[in-house]
């Protein structure tokens, strides 16, 4: 048995949207770029500016590896276009430490061995910063639940909770 399958009807190349001026404020620094509107915030960071600390694990809002803070709120950078964040305050993993002094969460992640390959780690840490700011996590179970938007394929979950708890002192 055989039959012919046509995957795509003939699509024609469309004229591309022109690049737009975008002003991204990242870790306190201004970046003025010309970006086509289809560039995600994640790709703007990684490919256009060079902040590769923010990771791409799915590009579909399913893993949390791309978590950054926008005006203090944790979001998935793959699920937002760069042009939508014009002028907003963006914090990435590169912006958490104070010079050589690690952010308490960064230090706690090292101390509690809260990662293995480290690829989910920037997203986990940014997410934890956002979590603490939200003030909703009262218990260990709350932390587990509210950190569940960040997959860790290496399975460092229990150490991630330990690390966060060590910073919050058990209660937030």
């Amino acid at each position, binding site marked *: 048995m055989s039959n012919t*399958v046509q995957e795509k009807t003939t699509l024609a190349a469309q004229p591309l949207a022109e690049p737009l001026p975008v002003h991204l404020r990242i870790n306190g620094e201004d970046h003025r770029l010309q970006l086509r509107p289809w560039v995600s915030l994640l790709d703007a960071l990684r490919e256009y500016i060079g902040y590769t600390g923010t990771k791409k694990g799915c590009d579909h809002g399913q893993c949390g590896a791309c978590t950054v803070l926008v005006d203090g709120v944790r979001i998935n950078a793959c699920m937002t276009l760069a042009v939508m964040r014009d002028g907003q305050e963006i914090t990435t993993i590169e912006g958490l430490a104070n010079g050589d002094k690690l952010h308490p969460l960064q230090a706690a992640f090292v101390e509690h061995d809260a990662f293995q390959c480290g690829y989910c780690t920037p997203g986990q840490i940014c997410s934890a910063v956002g979590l603490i700011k939200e003030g909703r996590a009262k218990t260990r179970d709350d932390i587990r639940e509210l950190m569940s938007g960040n997959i860790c394929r290496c399975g460092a979950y229990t150490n*991630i909770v330990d690390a966060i708890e060590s910073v919050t002192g058990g209660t937030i």
Partner: protein
Amino acid sequence: MSSTNYVGKPVSRVDGYAKVTGQARYAVEHHVPNLLYGFIVNSAIAKGSVTTLDTSEALKVPGVVQVFTHKNTPSLAWFDRSYKDQDSVPGSPFRPLHSEKIRFSMQPIALVVAETFELARYASTLLKIEYKEESSSTNLSESLPQAHEAPKGKEGYMPPKSRGHAKKAFSAAPVKIQAEYIHGAEHHNPMEMHGSMAIYEKGGKLLVYDKTQGVANTQEYVKKVFGLSKDDVRVLSPYVGGAFGSGLRPQYQLFMAVLAALELKQSVKVSLTRQQMFSFGHRPKSLQRLALSAASDGTLQSIEHTCYSETSRFEDYTEVVVNWSGLLYQCANVELDYQLVKLDVYTPIDMRAPGAVTGIYALECAMDELAVALNIDPLDLRLRNYAPEDQNEKKPFSSKELRACYLQGAEKFGWNKRNKEPRSMREGNQLVGWGMASASWDAQQQKCAAKALLTPDGKLTVSSGTADIGTGTYTIMTQIAAETLGLPIEQVEFKLGDSSLPEAPLEGGSWTAVSVGSAVKATCEEVGQKLLKLAKKKKDSPLANAGAEDVVFENGYIILKKDPAAAVSILDIIRDEREDIEVESAAMPGMIDKLKYSFHSHSAVFAEVKVDEDLGTIHVTRVVSAIAGGRVLNPKTARSQILGAVVWGISMALQEDSVIDHNFGRFMNHNYAEYHVPVNADIQNIEVIFVEEEDDIINPLGAKGLGEIGIVGVAGAIANAVYHATGKRIRKLPIQLDNVLSEP
């Protein structure tokens, strides 16, 4: 105790700072001028051929540079052997963009190269593709009649050996069980998707960043396939965002990036999408039949274990599945059989503890069923059939502390409070179940080389072309090097993931810590000998008459054992010398011991599940994993290895499943939303015990490697706990709520 005795200490990861600050750069995170982006297009059908592949619309998009397909790919290496790699299996390796033939769903059929990622991705939607589809067969259970004997030929694969008369013993035995177990295909899905950057350098040389578990393997593959010389290709892979086996063979994005860079004479980056992470090797689906029999006191009379595993049409992927049933328990009559079934899928590839997680899951569930039939406690049954030696190989173990794992694990878990009756331990509407399983894994060592450089400023740089996929290689090697030469750890740096470094084996199989560790130790010891020689030559040296056996290297000094006051500072020696000390050396497994002994790690896993009686939801509330893995080199990273492996076991037991639609021969849940892996809320209490296990036969470090042993018994223990909670014996993985609600 000396401060430079680092081995066995919970040293924090030396690469931790880079990883928590975002400075660690993974494969596709390097910036070079004039970089092009490749986006791969995959086949919509599982079998047949591409009849039309029209790229004209895509090429009209400004910024699109080229589209590579089977029609314009230059002729490359001709013979199969050029496409073979260090983890190849018997057969003919897949060649990307080689012909119009489609052999599996999502086969890569085109690479669109453009100035930006977005342009390449957009242009990929403009290809006009037509196929002639043939009917595909991807259904393992329906294809069993076509099964064939698994061939030899893959590194590490051992055909199973039977012994005694299992069938006869089975029919004579008073207590027996027979059962069939299935688990689905799984995809590794490391967090970092596979990606490669081929950086085109002056004179046509390539610098390749690849996500790989072996830079030498990548280099060799690129060299052979594209007809380059070794000097033309350097491969780097300093950070790997997880792999779990998926980086053991060169994946097709590497081919694509190199092809485009060489053709376009420009640097090219190609990353797979999460969807495309389901388009290459996976843990094969398998169907297993077990028959066990015992005397009424529980003594095993026979074990029969048959496994049918899927493989591709073009290669025979093999793993050690059934052999474990001849190893784990004392039994005179064992019949083992391992068969492969060719299907229209990509060739499976090793995935964390390949074979053992499959075979031991089924064996341990069958043992649980036998314990029920005998009305014996499942832990008792295992203790009664404890194997003091390896009956497969008829050799003693170099060490085996499985009994201590059973006892310490049971104690910690509180196993003696278990009520044998299923459905007897409820908490409200939660049915509580306790299950256990045993596990084993090989403890191997491979040949490995390393280099050490001690400079006059007292800095020691040790290197080997191995990988750290999250396993802690950077840290452990730094500890070993620092301790061997008695230097403060801050003065020591370990480098890896570079094909210009001394060659290391593929990072896998739990042999990295001991293989690379032994090489690092041997190399640093040679540096030590050179230092001692120099120390002896010093004027009025207190070590003038000392031999290698008479001294220790500690706290920055070479110290006379008999008289610790007689010591020479290492920094002084090297400073006075004013020249680097450089040594390259290698370590090999002890061949004679290899013939005499059997080398294995072991574990006992105890799991508690809670099953909601009304909703069928299953939660693993507690796991105790007791490990006998030789000497623990770093309890902090070792514990993390086991924690992660337990998460993998929970995932295998309850969540992970690559679901194929046989009408299309396609994995349908090919993304992170539908391919479930545990999230933080799914993981509750995990306790890890390392039992004391001394082994001075296995290798100079006394270690066994811990990457795999932690996952092996977990799915079995959970499946047995689900039975204990519900009284329902679910003989397939993953076990999901509809199974506990509906099956008898």
